[in-house]
C-alpha cells in the first residue's frame, strides 16, 4: 500500500513520459507525412517546457531545502536537545523550594 503512493509521486516528478510521447510522436509523424512543423508536435513540446518551468517554480517555493539532508537532521537533533535541556531546567527550577510554606 505504501509503494503505490510512492510510485505515483515518482511518476509526478518524472519527465520521461512526456519525452516518450514526443519521441513516439516524432516517429509516427515521420512515417506518415514527413512534416515536422505540425502544431501537435509543438503542443507536446510546449507541454514539456511548461512542466519544466512549473517544476522549477515548485522547487523554488519548497521549504527546508536550503541545506542538505544531513545538515538539516543535525539541526533537528540540536533543536531537540535544546528543548529537552530547557524542559529539564524548568522542571528543576519550578520544583526547587527550600522553604516550608505553610498552607493557608
Amino acid at each position, binding site marked *: 500500500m505504501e509503494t503505490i503512493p510512492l510510485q505515483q509521486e515518482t511518476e509526478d516528478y518524472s519527465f520521461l513520459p512526456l519525452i516518450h510521447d514526443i519521441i513516439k510522436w*516524432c516517429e509516427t509523424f515521420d512515417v506518415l507525412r514527413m512534416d515536422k512543423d505540425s502544431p501537435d508536435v509543438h503542443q507536446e513540446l510546449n507541454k514539456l517546457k511548461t512542466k519544466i518551468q512549473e517544476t*522549477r517554480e515548485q522547487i523554488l517555493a*519548497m521549504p527546508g*531545502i536550503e541545506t*542538505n539532508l*544531513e545538515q538539516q537532521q543535525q539541526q533537528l537533533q540540536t533543536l531537540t536537545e535544546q*528543548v529537552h535541556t*530547557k524542559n529539564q*531546567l524548568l522542571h528543576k527550577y*519550578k520544583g526547587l523550594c527550600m522553604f516550608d510554606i505553610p498552607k493557608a
Partner: protein
Amino acid sequence: MRSARSDANMAASEKSTKERLLSTLDDLEVLSRELIEMLALSRSQKPPQSGEDNQVLELLVQRDGEFQQLMLQAVEQGRLQQEMLGLDKELEKRDSDIQQLQKQLKEAEHILATAVYQAKEKLKSIEKARKGSISSEEIIKYAHRISASNAVCAPLNWVPGDPRRPYPTDLEMRSGMLGQMNNPSNNGNVNGHLPGDALAAGRLPDILTSQYLWQSTDVSMGMLPPHHGNEFGPGHNKENEDDVEAMSTDTSSSSSDSD
C-alpha cells in the same frame, strides 16, 4: 578515479538540495532538447546516428531517476522543516518561561535582601537598647522632674487669663544678666550672677522672687536648692499672683498677653 568520485560526492553532499534539484532539472532540460533535436535531425538525414542518441537517452533516464530521488528527499526535508518550526516555537515558549522565572527570582532576591537588612538593623537597635537599658522607675522619676515646672503641661488650676507662662517673661529677662547690664544701679548686686544664683544666695529683691512663681507650687525638691525649698510654699501664692497681675498690665510687655 576513486578520489575524484569521492570528491564529487563530497561536493554534491555539501550543496543544498535546492541547488542539486535545479542543476538536475537544467540537465534534464538540456538533454531532452538535445535528444529531440537529434531525433529531428536523424529523420531528415538518411543515416541514423543511434549511438549518440542512446548515450543521450541513457543520460536522460539517469538524470530523471536522480531528479525523482532528489524530489523525494526534498519532500522529506519539507516535513523535517515543519517539525523544526514546531520545535522552534516550543523553544521560544521555554525561553519566555525561563525569563519569567528569572525575573521572579530577582524580585524575590531583592525582597529577601531588604528584609534581611532591616532585620539586621533591628537586631542592632535591640542590642544597643539592651546595652543602655534604664529602669522604668528612673525614667518616670525623670519625667516627673522635667514636667514639675509646668513647661510641658499647664498647671491643673490654670485658666485662660492666668498670667503665668512656661517661659521667662519680660520682667524675668530684665532682671537677668543682660537686663542688669543696662541698669548700672543693680550691677553691684547681681553682677556676674544669674537670678537663680542671686535667689539662692538670698540677695535678690523680694519683688523679683515672685516672678518665678509661674512654676507650680508642688514643684519637686530636686529641682531647687534644698534650703530654699519652702520659700515657694502656698502662702506666697497670693503675692505672686498680684505681682504677676501687675506685670500683666504692663502694655510694653509682649510676652504677657493673656488670652
